[in-house]
């Protein structure tokens, strides 16, 4: 197809990754539900994963992909603990609105 490059350049992946990371960060800042915030953070991690894979591909080496596996494992553990905490909060407050958690301040 004319007009489209044969190979998608690394920069395009990096750009997409940066945009996804930014969307995730904005999600953390803007959403009120602890659950959605947590999902946004997962989006940020996966945005970085995209960068890592792109770099690995660029260097022609596997270590970028290997790091991604580490990140996924870590993220899974984080999700398990995170969801447990959020569920616990929900059970005691019947809400996961993060703005309710503002007793500690000053």
């Amino acid at each position, binding site marked *: 197809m004319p007009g489209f490059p044969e190979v998608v350049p690394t920069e395009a992946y990096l750009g997409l990754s940066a945009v996804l990371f930014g969307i995730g960060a904005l999600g953390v800042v803007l959403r009120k539900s602890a659950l959605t915030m*947590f999902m946004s953070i997962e989006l940020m991690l996966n945005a970085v994963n995209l960068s890592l894979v792109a770099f690995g591909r660029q260097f022609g080496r596997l270590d970028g992909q290997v*790091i991604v596996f580490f990140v996924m494992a870590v993220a899974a553990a984080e999700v398990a603990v995170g969801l447990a905490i959020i569920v616990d909060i929900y059970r005691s407050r019947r809400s996961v609105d993060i703005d309710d958690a503002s007793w500690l301040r*000053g």
Partner: protein
Amino acid sequence: MTFALPALDWWAIAPMLVLVLTGCATLVAELVRGDDAGRAPLAWLTVAGASVSGGIALGQWDDPARLAFSDMVSSDRFTLFFTVLFLVVTCVTVLFAFEQLRREDFHPGEFYPLLAFSTIGMVLMAAAADLVITFIGVELLSICLYILVGFSRRRREPEESAIKYLLLGSFASAFLLYGIALVYGSTGTTSLACVGRALGAPGGLVGACEGAVATGSVATGMLLAGIGLLVVGLGFKAALVPFHSWAPDVYEGAPTAITAFMSVGVKAAAFAALLRVFLVAFPTLAPDWSVLLAVVATVTMVTGNTVALFQRNIKRMLGYSSIAHAGYLLVAIVAASHAGAASLLFYAVGYAAMNLGAFAIVVVLGRAGEERVAISDYAGLSQRQPLLAALMATFMFALAGVPPTVGFVGKFYVFSAAVDAGYVWLALAGLASSVASAYYYLRVVYQMYMVDPKEVVASHSPHRWVSLVATVAGFAVIALGVFPGGIIGVATASTSFVR
């Protein structure tokens, strides 16, 4: 079909392996004896495991420095120094927790394995020879802590601490990871030493650097952005301003034992990682990042010391105080020199003594439920508990940096390293902000010695182990202030990789 097990240097990670076994053993033991009476053995098992681990670390002191596990971890004196420090902090935390959880009548056994695993995370952060290991150390530490900060019978505050720490902590981890990715993308490697070599740093312990792209000491924008993101990610754990907002809230809400653990252990681990990363991977870029960190250090010292003036809760006050001390520690990294690195290690030890001592008093005086943590609860303590009051006063004066305590000597080392590196203004800014700190530390002493007790409280006999910790810390605070030579010698030997 057989797989040949690669030749692995198990001995290099023996202290961590012992901790893994300790954690698993406590987990199993907890299953076997699920009742509350079975908690004391868990605590002692943890202390025993940590002692064995620390003993191994001390035994490895004269081993040659080397990289192990495919150049992922470094086994050198720096690792061992921090390993021993972390293990001491862990043991003290166990003693605090045992006392506190017993009092609160809330004593799940998972506490001890989680503590052991988060200690492994801290050791990994200090030992990391590769950014991936730094990341894994941070995550291992954090994930365990997310649970531990919410560990209490009370619901509201600990729960809030946990969710705040969880959300902000994982937020910061994403920045850390992005930083690692950008450094990888710029240099083609995540090994600290290989990054350093790619950037033109001389020699040191370097493994095989396949794929590393020699970029010379001229940094690209992407690399510098990556460095900035690493500052964000690690700065969060170290509670540097502006990544500190979680610290006061989490410190206040968490059980005191965990607050002590975080303010001393986690902070030291974050600085160990910062030091490794910045002085092994990026020493040639020091002129670039040291200015940035100097500004962060100044803002951190000023913020911590001014906001602490307003605190009524002692845990929260110590939280802001720990932010200010993070600023002092960062000054040592700004110096980007061997002297600066040695002074950081010295300060970490001194700070551990001062802060663990102060928290020991907070634990001893705490009560179930409300915990009695308002500064005004300390009114007239000198009349009821003269020894505890004297110890607390010692810690407060030490934290304020009054000689001849370790607080003064530590600041001396850190600031004179900065002066040597040409950062006279930074040293002066640090001194000025530390002068303000006298005011809030002294308020505690003022309450203890010059205000009559509000109510007559039946003085309960303090837990002997926690009191012992406070007494030992009190001696250490003075002794290290008068005879700092030993520790500074060890610290110098532990940081010989810094040039």
